[in-house]
């Protein structure tokens, strides 16, 4: 088990390093950094001075080394637009995105697991069809359009929730539904197929033959095993949702990481963009690592892979 964890940890570190190279490249191809830092009024001499001051005249590999050293200490330089440190901006916005991510995940779990279990137990029934319909429409629904529709119905017409902002918990309800719906189909399909598989297995047949009640068989024996891969998928989906937050946060004007990244992209503020890309990727890497370890801890067959 420890060998497995060590191996996965090394892969995760390697991937994180590769992503940081890509993230650094994103900053490099965004244009001449000295000119960007100097701003539109800087003279040629000032630009040259900035180039030396920030070490932008050094070879790329040295610049990358310096950048990585700083990035490892969560120092991503200064934003061109805000003139404050990128990390301050990120730290300020991160709680909003994490709240949104966890709420969305909670909604997705509360919808997908019961529905997936019910669909598997009553295979072919109306509830199975409803579940499939939710899965199929969920995959086809453009999430920004779904978000706008939620705003029109629940914020403008019914006035139950605000259309934008994160001042109170109410502001998170609609965005979390919009983002959670996005993760529901995959988790529900996995719960359903996992349940179907487990229900046909020998140990469930044994449990049934012993005369245990259906409730006991389903909840004590089947669900526990069927839900393992779903928990792992949930971790991965959380990573995806942090990435997808850029769309939903923009639709709902929630001032989180995604919103920050989107506005930074439209302002050519690439120090911010590369930091957000890297941070969201790191979250994803850690979450998938945890999911892998969790899966392997619960299912020893996976460790040899």
């Amino acid at each position: 088990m420890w060998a497995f964890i060590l191996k996965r940890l090394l892969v995760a570190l390697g991937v994180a390093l590769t992503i940081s190279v890509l993230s650094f490249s994103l900053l490099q191809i965004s244009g001449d950094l000295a000119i960007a830092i100097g701003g539109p009024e800087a003279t040629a001499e000032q630009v040259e001075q900035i180039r030396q001051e920030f070490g932008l005249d050094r070879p790329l590999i040295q610049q990358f080394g310096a950048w990585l050293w700083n990035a490892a200490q969560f120092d991503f330089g200064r934003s061109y637009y805000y003139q404050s440190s990128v990390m301050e901006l990120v730290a300020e916005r991160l709680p909003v995105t994490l709240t949104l991510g966890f709420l969305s995940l909670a909604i997705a779990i509360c919808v997908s697991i019961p529905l997936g279990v019910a669909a598997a137990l009553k295979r072919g029934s109306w509830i199975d069809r409803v579940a499939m319909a939710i899965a199929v429409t969920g995959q086809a629904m453009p999430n920004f359009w779904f978000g706008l529709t939620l705003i029109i119905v629940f914020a403008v017409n019914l006035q139950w929730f605000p259309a934008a902002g994160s001042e109170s918990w109410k502001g998170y309800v609609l965005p979390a539904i919009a983002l959670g719906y996005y993760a529901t189909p995959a988790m529900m399909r996995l719960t359903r197929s996992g349940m179907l598989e487990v229900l046909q297995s020998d140990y469930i047949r044994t449990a049934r033959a012993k005369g245990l009640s259906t409730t006991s068989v389903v909840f004590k024996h089947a669900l526990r095993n069927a839900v393992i891969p779903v928990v792992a998928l949930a971790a991965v989906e959380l990573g995806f949702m942090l990435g997808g937050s850029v769309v939903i946060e923009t639709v709902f004007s929630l001032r989180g990481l995604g919103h920050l990244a989107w506005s930074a992209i439209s302002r050519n503020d690439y120090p911010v963009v590369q930091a957000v890309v890297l941070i969201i990727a790191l979250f994803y890497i850690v979450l998938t690592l945890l999911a892998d370890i969790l899966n392997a801890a619960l299912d020893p067959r996976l460790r040899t892979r």
Partner: protein
Amino acid sequence: MPDSTTPLATRTSPRLRSPFASLSARLPRHRTLLLGITITGLLVLIALLAPWLAPHDPYAQSTANRMIPPVWHAAGSWEHMLGTDRLGRDYLSRLLYGARISLFIGLLAAFISGLIGTTLGVLAGYFGGRVDAVVSYILTTRLALPVVLVALALASLTGGSLIMVTLLLGLLLWDRFTVVARSATVQLRDAEYVQAAQALGASLPYILLREILPNIAPALIVVATLEVANAILLEATLSFLGMGIQPPLPSWGLMIAEGKAYMFFQPWVIAIPGAALFMLVLAINLLGDGLRDISAPGGRDE
């Protein structure tokens, strides 16, 4: 079918009794697949015939005819069946031309990502070992990248032309092709007819392209279908956020973005392009899911 110089083993192998033959036998009984094929076909036809179907020029502005509601509203008229946008352009005509953009980007992006993903997957599956390790490393790295964010940043840097957006999506969406191509190839690697071809000294490209590829094609077609839908959704997202297709092109995502300011009083401006997008993606997904169901040996769930 291979020509007469191919080893006998390939010809007598039951696997090569075209995988598509069993599909056509099961097709008529699959209702959602038929629905998917019908709607997708209809929308492709609409996209192809847009210049003849559109009642107006999709780019013609008219200040006198701004924000006319669709025909089912009291103020609507048959002249502009789905109304006009804020620049007085005919909404139906823009919608019809928009189908071309979505389908063009979806198909071409899926083709590019299919090439990249299949190549990586087949190589990883066939050679295994170190090649497999490298490919799986590249795949893991790609999966860790937040796609929407990276696509937004790169589209913004490259200016968001139709070709650029398509290329970007193609370069980002190959992961599922790799996963499926790899596992399908692993299953075939030790098949008798592949071993026979190896024993008879067939070249590597021959084995990969003539023995492996045709037999993993059905699985890849399923992925390709779903990836077309995926690319269409992502293009709409990029265009909605202002970094994808640029005005005045009638991308559906862009139409939703342009209508956003008016949606509180005239919800149809976002409802119409959104519904079109939803329908197209839903139809393609039904098509893909259906193909997967009938191409799996035991059918659904088994």
